[in-house]
Structures are given as C-alpha cells and as structure tokens.
C-alpha cells in the first residue's frame, strides 16, 4: 500500500526553545480521508508547516507518496496542496489572479490554468466574485478561495488546516460535500478540525496530537467507541427544589429548572427517561453540554492517568 503521507519521528524545536513536536510518526494511506485532532497549541499546524515547507524541521523525515521532501522537494510539493489555517493571499489581488498565479508557480500553462480556475472557482461558488478585490470577500469565501487555490495543480494529497473555522453551517455542509467528492475521485485528504462531528462525518481515520505527541491513531469508529460519557442538560417544565433521590452520583441540579446528567455509552438514554417518568419530572428540552471532542480529550487523559 502506498502512503500518501508518511512522517517519521518528526521533531520541531522553535527558535524560542519551545519543543512543539516531540518526534511524531504518522502514516496516511493513499485515498484516505484523515483527521488530525488536537487542542489549541498541540502542534497540528507546526506539523503541516513542516510537511509543506513553511517550517524547518529539527529532526525526522517526511515522505509524500514515497518522495522524501529532503531529497526531491519540488516533486514532493507538486503532489501536495495545502489550505492553511490563516489567510495568506494578497488582499489586493482578485480571486482569479490569486488562483492563476498559484497555477503559474507550479508551472502550469495558462490555458490549462484558465480552465481549472473556472472549474474550481465555480465549484466553490466564487466564480461571480472572481474579479472583485479579495479583501472584500467574507471569511467563508476567503477559505473557499484558499481551497480553490490549493487545487489548481490538482494535488494527489490535500491538507486542510481548519478549513471550516468560522464558516456557517450551510456552507460547512457544502464544503463537506465538496471534499467528500474530491476524495471519492481519488484525492487523499488530511484535515485538522476542532469539530468532532466534522471528523466523524468525513474521516475514516483519526490521529490525536497532544502537546507535540501523537497519542491516538486509529479508525474513527474505534475512537468514537471510546467516547465514554457525555453530559446532557435537561430543561424542566416545573422547578425542582432538590435533587431527586434517584439522582445521586450522576445527576446535578444546576438551576431550579435545569438538570445535568452524565451518560455513559453503555447506559444509553432510555434509562434516564425511565427514571424521569417514574418521578413525574417533565422535560421540556434537552441538549448536549460538552463539546464531545473536548470530552474525548478528557477521557483519554483520564485513561492515561489510570494506566
């Protein structure tokens, strides 16, 4: 099996002495849709920066479709497309200029570039905006522009660093659709995200980076099954003065009409409603309290602590 990306013992020490990556190893198979999760500052963007040549590595190796970036960087780069976390195009140029220039840097002839520019700008809903100043695009449009830009040389591996940050739900879903489609057409994709549902809905495999180390590297299904508990908030119709008898342990009364409950995967929700019904507590609405991703990180830390 060819690896779209293979990273070994990658280490990064920044000039200020900070050890952002402590020797991570990762392998992403060709055709995969792979999520890189991790809290703020975990080292995701640093790793991506090294892979695409914006950050000097301290140690380790990176291979893109078996091309070592130290041996043949130009070849490795032409196989790779990147959508960075921060906007990094000239705000004075138009979307069309931006994608056309990008094609130029990859040595793509103008005629081919024009066709692709139209295709990708149209697919990302930016064709109408092609001649406007890119400074005036909305945040979501700017992100889509960076995706179109990264596709101009039709890379075999596309890496997206938080592509849906600050993008509304509707556009996010259409971006998901788009990414799914190009993945089906054969592009391997790696993305970082702070939304578990994004990784859940798109990605087959997930790695978690924490403080510069890979602490989890498994299939999405496997990882979600380790999600041990979730916290739900229940809004009640009638106020309660104290926590009912059954509620010891995993229930908390956080306001006169709000109850919180920890629910583990084995327990499921039926038991909770049985108890509520038995006590004639009527629930108006219910929502998930925790960021499930955060919960996943916490669970993992808990498990590590007990190991």
């Amino acid at each position: 099996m060819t690896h779209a990306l293979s990273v070994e013992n990658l280490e990064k020490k920044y000039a200020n002495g900070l050890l952002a990556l402590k020797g991570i190893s990762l392998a992403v198979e060709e055709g995969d849709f792979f999520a890189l999760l991790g809290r703020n500052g975990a080292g995701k963007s640093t790793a991506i920066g090294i892979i695409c040549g914006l950050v000097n590595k301290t140690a380790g190796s990176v291979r893109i479709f078996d091309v070592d970036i130290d041996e043949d960087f130009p070849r490795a780069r032409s196989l790779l497309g990147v959508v960075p976390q921060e906007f990094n195009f000239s705000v004075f140029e138009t979307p069309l200029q931006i994608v056309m220039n990008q094609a130029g840097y990859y040595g793509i002839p103008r005629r081919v570039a024009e066709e692709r520019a139209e295709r990708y700008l149209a697919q990302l809903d930016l064709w109408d905006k092609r001649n406007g100043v890119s400074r005036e695009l909305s945040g979501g449009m700017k992100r889509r522009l960076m995706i179109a830009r990264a596709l101009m040389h039709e890379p075999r591996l596309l890496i997206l660093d938080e592509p849906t940050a600050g993008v509304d739900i509707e556009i996010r879903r259409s971006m998901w659709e788009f990414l799914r489609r190009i993945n089906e057409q054969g592009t391997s994709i790696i993305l970082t995200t702070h939304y578990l549902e994004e990784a859940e809905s798109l990605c087959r495999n997930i790695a978690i980076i924490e403080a510069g180390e890979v602490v989890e590297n498994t299939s999405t299904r496997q990882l979600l099954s380790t999600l041990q508990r979730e916290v739900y908030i229940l809004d009640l119709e009638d106020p309660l003065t104290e926590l009912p008898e059954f509620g010891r342990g995993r229930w908390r009364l956080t306001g006169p009409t709000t109850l919180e409950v920890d629910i583990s995967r084995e327990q499921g929700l039926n038991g909770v409603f049985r108890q509520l019904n038995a006590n004639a507590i009527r629930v108006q609405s219910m929502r998930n309290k925790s960021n499930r991703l955060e919960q996943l990180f916490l669970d993992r830390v808990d498990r590590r602590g007990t190991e």
Partner: protein
Amino acid sequence: MSAESVRIAYFTIVTKEVTRFLRIWQQTLLPPVITTSLYFVIFGNLIGPRIGDMEGFRYIDFIVPGLILMAVITNSYANVSSSFFSAKFQRSIEEIQVSPTPEWVILLGYVTGGMARGLLVGVVVSVVAMLFSGLTVHSFPVMLSVILLTAMLFALGGFLNGLFARKFDDVSIVPTFILTPLTYLGGVFYSINLLPPFWQAVSHGNPILYMINGFRYGFLGISDIDLGLSYAIIIAFAVALFWINLRLLKTGYGIRT
C-alpha cells in the same frame, strides 16, 4: 521543474510584480517623476545658469545622468524591498514557498520586477529631462549596460532588505540613511575633482560613485573614474548580493520558522 515550468513560474512572478506597481502608479511612478522634474526646473532653469559649466558641460547636462540614475536606483530598490516585505507581511509569499518554484527563480522574478519599475521610471524621467537639456548619448551600449546592471544591483539590495525587514519601518531605513546620502555624495551634482584630495579618496569608497560616473560616461563621454573599474565594481556587488540572497532564501531566513 522542467525548463518550461520554470519559465512559466518566472513570468508569473514578473507579471505579478509589474501589475502591482502599475496598479499603484500614484505611489510608484508619479513621485519620482515629480521630484526629478523639480530638480530639472531648479537646477536647469533657475540656479544652473549661475553655476556655469561643470567639466566642460552645462550644469544641467552634467547632472541629468546622475538624476536619472538616482531615480532608477531608488525605484528598483524600493519596489523589491516593499513588495517582498509586504508579501512576507501578508504571508502571500507562502503561495510561492509551497510551490516547486526554485529559489533562484523567486529571486530573479522579484529582481526583474524591481528592474522593470526602475527602468520605467528611468525612461519617463529621461523624457522629462529632454525638455530641459539637450540629452545626447555618447555611447548607447555603455549607457544601457550601466543602467541595467545598476537596476539589477539595487533590486538585489532591495530583496535583501525585504528578507531582513520585520516591520514597515525597516523598509525605509536603508534608503533614507544609506542610499540617499551615498547617491548625493556619489557625484550626482558635482565632479569629485572639485573636492580636496582627502574627500576625493573617501569618495572612492562609495560604490555609487562608480555607477554614476559610468552612466554619465554613457551620455557625455566623461568620467572621474576608469570605466572598467565601474563595471568591475557593479558586477562584483551584484554577484555578491545574488549569492547572499540565494543562500538566505535556501535556509529560509526571514520566511521560514
């Protein structure tokens, strides 16, 4: 990258650079033309006649080559330093960095862009100069080669400045405190033969003196300096700067963390 791809990448950078300075022509092309025209009016029409001849030429004719070259120097330098710095600042330089474009092509692309602006300003200023002086050319090859080499040299200097700059102020420090004084003291307005021996010797340490004299030779056929020495110095500086810039680009100085 294949030769054809390299060619495409190079022209992409050049076109982008030229488009940039043409788009903001009010900041890039107009000011040097206004400044230089003022020099022509003041020294050509108002004060020049009172100064009399310099090295056998009317004063205005003597200073025109230096003024043109000064405009070329300033603009070649400023174009590259500010464009490259702002690409760094906006991080749009990353677009090129992640691509397979080799470093030497990036450098040449920016330098060509700077030369294009320097030369365009040079041409416009020359046209204006014709209104004030009987601009004659003694040796077209010398004039052309000196101006091309000088534009390249200062475009390379501007690139180095762009690599080192961390804030916008850093882009104007070198022109203000180094380039402008060296140009003024490099004999734009006078022949160094007017200076006492000591200051003549000091002036020989100023590289811009060699360029101005080389360029003036192209127009008037006179020079305070040996022409061969002028070429040698310009080329030596250009080669050194090219090499330094390329080394820094390869190690990622100022653009990779």
